[in-house]
């Protein structure tokens, strides 16, 4: 009895969290998995068909494109954000004039929603009136910027918009890491006469490795979710050239009334997120704790 009533208020206050984590986070996944094994169409029905939905999914040309896109997008976006974010952080770290102004400029896109980001870049990259038009008016007739209507290049337009929005965020994380470096490290590096770029690349970057890892995980987890941005920028087009798994899921849920397929695709999304997170979580919480001991 003593142990039950002890911290009772605390237990009650955490009840919403416990309920949510069980019903929403665990419950929804189990629900999705169960119905991914059914042939549900417009409404969920328990007519089991085994793993047929998954077979159909992996045979689907559209899903192939979606997976290919998510890999391209994930790779370009992650690398782009890391490189630009780190570069900007290093530059800002050089005690430049107007530091806070530059920081404000690099970060403001992060305050914008994905929808806004998508719509702005849709306009800037508009093949008729956008940047291409400007270049033509300036006399560069050969200039071509038709990414949005080009099946091969449209996904890279998405990447540019996403990097524009997210690089500042990585910059902030990296800058926090750089500012956390002990001044004495810099003093000793400068006494040993090691050039700045070498110091950053070979001494400082390894020191802020936790920050880098965190950035990568956050970006990667965001990659899998990408939906609004593409909807606003290309609507998945031209054709379905820029469709993504998230779009595939949403389409099958809400416009194609193909629930079983949507559940199967969402379970695959879930598994891929777990694959990204699990090693990191293991490292961050288990391995590090052990190291600390």
């Amino acid at each position, binding site marked *: 009895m003593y142990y039950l009533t002890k911290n009772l208020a605390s237990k009650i206050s955490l009840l919403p*969290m416990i309920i*949510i984590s*069980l019903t929403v986070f665990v419950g929804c996944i189990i629900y999705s998995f169960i119905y991914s094994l059914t042939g549900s169409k417009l409404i969920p029905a328990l007519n089991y068909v085994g793993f047929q939905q998954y077979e159909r999914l992996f045979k689907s040309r559209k899903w192939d494109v979606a997976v290919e896109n998510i890999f391209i997008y994930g790779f370009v976006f992650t690398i782009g954000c890391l490189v630009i974010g780190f570069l900007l952080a290093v530059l800002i770290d050089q005690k*430049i004039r107007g530091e806070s102004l530059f920081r404000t400029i690099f970060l403001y896109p992060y305050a914008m929603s994905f929808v*806004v980001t998508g719509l702005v870049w849709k306009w*800037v990259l508009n093949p008729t009136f956008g940047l291409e038009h400007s270049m033509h008016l300036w006399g560069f007739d050969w200039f071509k910027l038709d990414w949005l209507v080009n099946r091969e290049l449209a996904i890279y337009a998405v990447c540019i918009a996403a990097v524009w929005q997210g690089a500042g965020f990585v910059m902030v994380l990296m800058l926090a890491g750089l500012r956390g470096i002990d001044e004495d490290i810099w003093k000793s590096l400068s006494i040993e006469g090691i050039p700045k770029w070498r110091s950053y690349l070979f001494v400082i970057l390894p020191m802020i490795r936790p920050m880098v890892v965190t950035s990568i995980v956050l970006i990667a987890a965001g990659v899998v979710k990408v939906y609004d941005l593409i909807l*606003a920028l290309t609507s998945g087009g031209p054709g379905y050239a820029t469709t993504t798994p998230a779009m595939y899921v949403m389409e099958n849920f809400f416009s194609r009334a193909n629930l079983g397929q949507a559940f199967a695709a969402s379970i695959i999304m*879930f598994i891929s997120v777990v694959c990204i*997170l699990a090693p990191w979580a293991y490292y961050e919480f288990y391995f590090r704790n052990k190291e600390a001991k």
Partner: protein
Amino acid sequence: MNINSNNFQPNGPRPKHLTIGRIGMYGFIFMCALFFLMPLYVMIVTSLKDMDEIRSENLLYIPKALSFYAWPKAWSEACTGFVCEGLKPGLINSIKITIPSVIVSVSLGALNGYALAFWRFKGAYFFFGLCLFGAFIPYQVMVYPLLKIESAIGIYSSLPGIILVHTIFGMPILTLIFRNFYASLPIDLFKAARIDGGNFIKIFFYVIIPMSTPITIVAVILQVTGIWNDFLLGLVFAGRDNQPMTVQLNNIVQVDYGVAEYNVDMAATILTSLVPLFVYFISGRWFVRGIAAGAIKG
């Protein structure tokens, strides 16, 4: 001889040189700044041009003649589907969604964080870990089952429905940042309060909340921008009558019929991002702390 050469010995402050490296650095940083600013600039100038100028003139030029045609239209006349009321209803909906969602989720996050930091019991961290893991799961995976749950309790497609969803998805990260903040407070403070006779609720209200101002600001910024910018949840859970601004914006811009009015589109886009931009510019450092807090350990 000696006296002469002494004159050329270094003396006083070292003369400053603008090295090539530094010039290159400033050059690069300026280029980056231009790249980052360009879309915002294009948005603003486009919204102030008329359609003729947009069609014929350079995207990057400032307007020849200022045209304010687009702004009132975006605000109150632009069509989303069959309704032509502009973004105004969306703004009101977004406010109606954001304010209660922020209040509920932040209070709950603070309470959870407090309970986890000071009153943990066996298994508490297991649920917290589960919850945190949930924060990373793509919404798409949970949207449909959650929709089923909400329709079962009869709040799907309503204001309480969307508020509940925002609370659910905001809670893990808010719990985390509050917990981390409370864990950084000296534990002695909490011990002292217990010896002074405070219980769970009293310590929370008298000792912890008065100290929580900074982290609450961070949490509120995080939630206001996050919820305001949300599209997917608003699209699915808010229902036709409560569509937030982002959803309406997308509807306005993506119309399949009629002539596209890019100046109206851009005005609408700016209107939609005003609130988060305003929060960003006035909160500055807090915003940075907010996203860093939301990210570093998340």
